């Protein structure tokens, strides 16, 4: 039973962590939390099943196509819902613009793909039981993503430019960094990470349009716990959430597990609204 909690908890936690990173990557570049994070996760599974299972495309090519779709959707999100809102006075309306876009995509998926969960193909038929790909694939994806991001941020100039605009947008613009372009790039990157999360988790979560709202929420919890913008926080928070959820599933079972997660989320938010790494607001006047 412990084995089940750990293997499953970590796998689903890795998916949550990746969605959390998706939120963060978009947030760093734009100060916008986008409701499209869960949508990307949902599409990762649906598009993967569509390309590989339905259309019979080679798994590797299908995977690349899914990521490409994620990148395109990320760019569309930036152009359609983030940029116009950032220009306006009431910037907090991004909450509604991104929600609207995510709902539109979800509804199209529901109509074109169907409202029933559909299977996701087994890509690597190696390993049985606890070594099944559905358990280690999300963890691998999470590790690769966090490693890749570390590499990007540490060893490439564009990665450091991401960090720079995240820390001080104004100073970055003054230095002549291409802020707009970097924001688009970060949304494209977030699109790929989000669909990667959905793609690797789809063996567990299936290709199902309803995953959007689940991932939106459970992916945001690690961000709220780990502090916004912190990818390491998101990974730790995501894995912890996965384990907690799984343990609650075992201990109290059924729908009370979901209620327990919601309760923890709200209590933590009320006690530490800024997350663990948050700072208090400075002068207001």
């Amino acid at each position, binding site marked *: 039973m412990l084995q089940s909690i750990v293997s499953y908890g970590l796998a689903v936690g890795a998916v949550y962590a990746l969605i959390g990173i998706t939120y963060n990557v978009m947030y760093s570049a734009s100060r916008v939390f986008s409701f499209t994070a869960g949508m990307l996760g949902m599409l990762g599974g649906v598009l993967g099943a569509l390309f590989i299972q339905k259309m019979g495309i080679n798994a590797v090519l299908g995977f690349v196509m899914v990521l490409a779709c994620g990148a395109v959707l990320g760019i569309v999100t930036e152009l359609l819902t983030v940029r116009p809102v950032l220009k306006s006075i009431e910037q907090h309306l991004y909450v509604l613009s991104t929600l609207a876009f995510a709902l539109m995509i979800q509804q199209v998926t529901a109509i074109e793909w169907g409202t029933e969960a559909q299977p996701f193909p087994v890509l690597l038929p190696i390993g049985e039981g606890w070594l099944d790909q559905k358990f280690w694939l999300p963890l691998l994806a999470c590790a690769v993503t966090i490693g890749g991001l570390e590499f990007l941020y540490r060893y490439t100039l564009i990665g450091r430019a991401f960090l720079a605009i995240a820390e001080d947008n104004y100073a970055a*613009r*003054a230095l*002549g960094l291409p802020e707009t372009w970097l924001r688009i790039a970060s949304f494209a990157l977030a699109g790929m990470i989000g669909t990667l999360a959905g793609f690797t988790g789809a063996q567990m979560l299936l290709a199902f349009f309803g995953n959007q709202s689940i991932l939106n929420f459970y992916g945001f919890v690690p961000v709220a716990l780990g502090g916004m913008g912190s990818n390491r926080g998101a990974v730790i928070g995501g894995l912890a959430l996965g384990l907690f959820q799984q343990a609650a599933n075992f201990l109290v079972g059924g729908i009370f597990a979901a209620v327990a997660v919601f309760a923890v989320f709200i209590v933590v938010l009320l006690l530490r609204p800024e997350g663990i790494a948050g700072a208090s607001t400075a002068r207001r006047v």
Partner: protein
Amino acid sequence: MIMMRAWRPAVRKTMTHHCSGAAPAQEDAMSSEPLLQVSGLSAGYGKIVVLRDIALSIGAGEAVALLGPNGAGKTTLLRAMSGLLPRSGQVRLGGQEMPNANPRATVAAGMAHVVEGHRVFTQLTCHDNLLLAGYGVPGAVRARQVDEALAFFPEIAAKRNDKAVTLSGGQQQMLAVAQGLVGKPRLLMLDEPSAGLSPVLVDRVLAAITQLRASGTAVLLVEQLIEKALAVVDRVYALARGSIVLEARADEADLPNRLERAYFGEGAHAPLDA
């Protein structure tokens, strides 16, 4: 009221006088348009118009100080020129029109702006901070230019692999100035590089300006410490209430008095008593 009315044109007269005096001299010397030519520039924040109809010019390799009391619009002027803030009016560098509200293109054209408050990226190393400043420069040249910028500040060079957060305020300011140098700008704009620094460090930072001028880079310096500023520049503009109220050579004898009059206004008592 009468005196008030009289006072404003008086300033304009001074200005006109100096402009008409200085500009031909420059033209004689360079026999072409100066490096930087700003005309008819207005800018502000939302509905608040901060700058009205600004005109100024800077020659190649010339160091100019922009002085003025708080709230006069000095920082706003630098922002408008470097494209961080939308503006109306013309900014020409080397005869070429600078695009409005496009800091990236402005930097690429050779105008670097070191913003106020030593805002470096604290989570990156000094070296990375400088590499970012050379984002638009081809990769092959970038490393060399970073080294050249570091040559101005040996104390930063020694800490090049440390995170900027470990630097003192003065060192961060040096790093910020060094960032401005990486792109080998034709004009470097510095916004209050002395703010929050000890006098020794102020001298270190300002000394760099002398070096720069010697190497042919023009400098526009916004500074509160007027005497220190005057020691390193050729010429000054004074900004008050959103307009240029004075232009003079740095070595003019009566300058402090003229500045005082320009700031406070000579007819200060006039409005209500009239």
